[in-house]
């Protein structure tokens, strides 16, 4: 036995320092646990995880740049003329890096303040209560743990005949790191990642095309939500090929096939954004007796426990791969592992898409509510009715409220339009508080704001009785 194999003891071992893992670690430390966080570090990991380093935050920075540039060239408000707007991607990358570094330092300080130990390296379970961490310098550290929390997240799924090469066939991570706007970008997959980045690159000047196997964009979302985004794609000149499958690279192009035959789209760069796969394949999970399903996901109960001593949260569990879901689960898992009663039972997990226009949805859609057997009442208020939207110069969209008549409560809210990502929080609170449409109607909303859309839609569902 070599000295290096002498196992250190760990009270709670958190694997992954993303928005799930670091939140869980901080909560557990608050509850008096001695916490060790193991994270594989750059490029896809690090404190804050993929979300901070190569996901949510960098993509929003790029979308903000693209939106500002688009606005400069084609102002949405009257009376503005800007000449000479120019995109400097290297300068953007420096700005983005500064943001990411500052936020990562914030996470580091948070964990340090709670006395959490951070270990950088790749972890693999090797015994029911032991894991080995391969350190960047080639050494190994062994940890004998009481409990472990798996929060290793996910990575972009690859397409076998279009392997990622970091040069031409790119992950979202690669595209977000570009320091030159490609002449053309072929996006494979019209999910939210493909469309967010595709639209941003289109605004920055790329000729963008999208290939999608389903018969519409954003197939995971309600169809009505995708329609304004289809118009947004058309405005930007993005070519969309639905019900189509990729055949492969063809010279400077990407070939696809559909019922009508074959076609090609220009493809100086290709973004493959067909989904994400959970990072559970290289963790040595059999050693701790935690199985994964065909999709690589870990089954957990309401307390996020996969076994008596192992919890799993975030993208490695079934459900939408969203940072805020992982964080909420992280709190639950930390509490459950520490003997505090806790359950992950939200009434709604808001989903937001930073397309142009933005999409936000929480709770049930009309279709889901009807399928669920509710006594459904639905109302939709178009954004065109909003004075504030008119002055922003973006009025393609709507607010929809889905309610249940018998319980008199809001079941779901869907929004399309500017700042929908910000506005959905109020709807989420309403659903969690079991609010009725009348509760929303009776709440004064400031004028003129976009928040009046939710107020107006709820008011239609809460008609005041006629005077007798």
């Amino acid at each position, binding site marked *: 036995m070599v000295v290096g194999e002498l196992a250190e003891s760990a009270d709670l071992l958190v694997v992954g320092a993303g928005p799930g893992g670091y939140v869980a670690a901080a909560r557990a430390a608050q509850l008096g646990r001695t916490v060790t966080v193991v994270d594989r570090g750059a490029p896809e990991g690090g404190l804050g995880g993929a979300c901070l380093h190569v996901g949510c935050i960098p993509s929003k920075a790029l979308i903000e740049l693209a939106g500002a540039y688009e606005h400069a060239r084609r102002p949405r408000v009257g009376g503005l003329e800007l000449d000479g707007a120019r995109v400097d991607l290297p300068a953007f990358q420096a700005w983005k890096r500064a943001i990411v570094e500052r936020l990562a330092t914030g996470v580091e300080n948070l964990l340090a303040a709670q006395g959490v130990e951070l270990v950088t390296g790749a972890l693999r379970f090797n015994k029911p209560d032991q894991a080995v961490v391969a350190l960047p310098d080639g050494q190994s550290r062994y940890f004998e743990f009481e409990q472990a929390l798996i929060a290793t997240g996910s990575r972009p799924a690859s397409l076998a005949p279009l392997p990622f090469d970091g040069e031409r066939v790119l992950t979202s991570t690669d595209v977000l790191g570009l320091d030159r706007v490609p002449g053309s970008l072929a996006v494979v997959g019209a*999910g939210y990642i493909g469309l967010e980045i595709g639209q941003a690159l289109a605004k920055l000047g790329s000729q963008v095309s999208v290939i999608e196997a389903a018969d519409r964009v954003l197939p*995971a979302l309600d169809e009505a939500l995708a329609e304004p985004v289809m118009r947004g794609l058309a405005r930007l000149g993005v070519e969309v090929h639905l019900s189509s499958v990729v055949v492969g690279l063809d010279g400077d192009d990407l070939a696809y096939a559909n019922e009508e035959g074959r076609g090609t789209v220009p493809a100086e760069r290709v973004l493959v954004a067909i989904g994400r796969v959970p990072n559970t394949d290289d963790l040595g999970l059999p050693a701790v007796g935690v199985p994964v399903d065909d999709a690589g996901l870990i089954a957990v109960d309401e307390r996020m426990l996969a076994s008596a001593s192992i919890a799993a949260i975030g993208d490695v569990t*079934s459900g939408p*791969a969203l940072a805020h879901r992982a964080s909420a689960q992280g709190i639950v898992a930390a509490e459950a592992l520490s003997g505090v*009663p806790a*359950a992950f039972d939200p009434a709604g997990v808001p989903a937001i898409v930073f397309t142009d226009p933005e999409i936000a949805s929480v709770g*049930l859609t009309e279709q889901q509510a009807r399928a669920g057997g509710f006594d459904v009442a639905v109302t939709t208020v178009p954004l065109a009715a909003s004075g504030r939207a008119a002055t922003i110069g973006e009025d393609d969209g709507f607010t929809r409220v889905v309610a249940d008549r018998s319980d008199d409560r809001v079941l779901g809210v869907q929004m399309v339009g500017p700042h929908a990502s910000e506005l959905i929080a109020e709807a989420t609170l309403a659903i969690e508080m079991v609010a009725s449409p009348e509760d929303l109607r009776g709440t004064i909303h400031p004028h003129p704001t976009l928040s009046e859309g939710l107020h107006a839609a709820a008011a239609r569902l809460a008609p005041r009785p006629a005077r007798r």
Partner: protein
Amino acid sequence: LPFDFRLPDVGEGIEAAQIVDWKVRPGDRVDQDGPLVEIETDKAIVAIPSPTSGVVLRLGAEAGETLRVGDVLVVLDGADGGVAHEDRSQTDEIDGLAAGAAKAAGRPLASPAVRKLALERGIDLTQVEGGGPHGRIRRTDLEGVPAPASPGPDVAPARADAVEPLRGIRRSIARTLTHSWQTIPHVIDYREADATALDALRRTLRDSAGEAGDAQLAGALTITPLLVRMAATLLPRHRSLNAAVDMEREQVTFHGSIDIGVATATSEGLLVPVVRDADGKSLRAIALELAELAPAARAGKLTRAQLTGATFTVNNFGALGAWLGTPIIGPGQTANLGVGRMERRAVVRGDEVVVRPVLTLACAADHRLIDGDTLASFVTDFVRLVEEPALLLQELR
């Protein structure tokens, strides 16, 4: 190039078949002779393999739909092969949301804070009846809900206990009384009153109503309406006994009206129908109203409005045979006047032991607001009215 694979003739003269289960989805790659779909004819379920390798472009029908032989079953790109791609995460998202819909249907109508509290106390919210609009479960609905007992020793009891849920009026009583008993410090003044004059007055009034041919009034003139009338007469001068203490806001409400609840035993449990504005009602009106309310309460015919909102309670437990009791103050009130059974007892008058009808009184008050002297002042006045009911004439407007 894409080609249409049509529903083949599976033999036996079958003309149509129902799709049972697709083994592929659009975008999937399928190998020659790989599983494609299961169909059901009126004879059997048949698995149909793919005629070629390729990529599925479109399904001709969804599971559950019926196709005729020759209809397009699936469109395949069968040439040198497209590239299968599927969007796993999006599928999960759909699954996740659909699961959410199913979950939303059965979930208790409670906010996150209430759910957390229930979790901490081990309360199963699906078993809690919410008191809010449309059954919403509020934080206060969890008060008095017992946590499930921790599993005891694993020994079977000699005779099985009968465990029944608390329901309806019983549960409501249990919650209300638990809350009152746990939150209100009770101070109780016990007295005995010589009821000779009261008893005589009651007989006179009853006989007089009988002679006037008003059998209804005669029957209604028990001692209870007299006690209610007396309380209504005195309460304007003892306003702290017609009040409510709110410790959350740390304030006292002195009720503007005098609404006297009269505790009434029913088969479902104790109900307290309310005589509204009792101070403005004649003895006759009160008697007749009580004569209607009590049987209606026993028949379960009173509305919630008729059973709530008392500002003071009279509890004639003497009707049940009790000589003395311990009244518990109801919600929104500060006092409850209990009255025992009127009995002929030996009492001392001067230096003589004489036999007199005696009424025992037990008046409970909320000690947070009412001290012993305040309570005693009310009870003393009340005893005086019982012993000299003629004073009622003086008190009446």
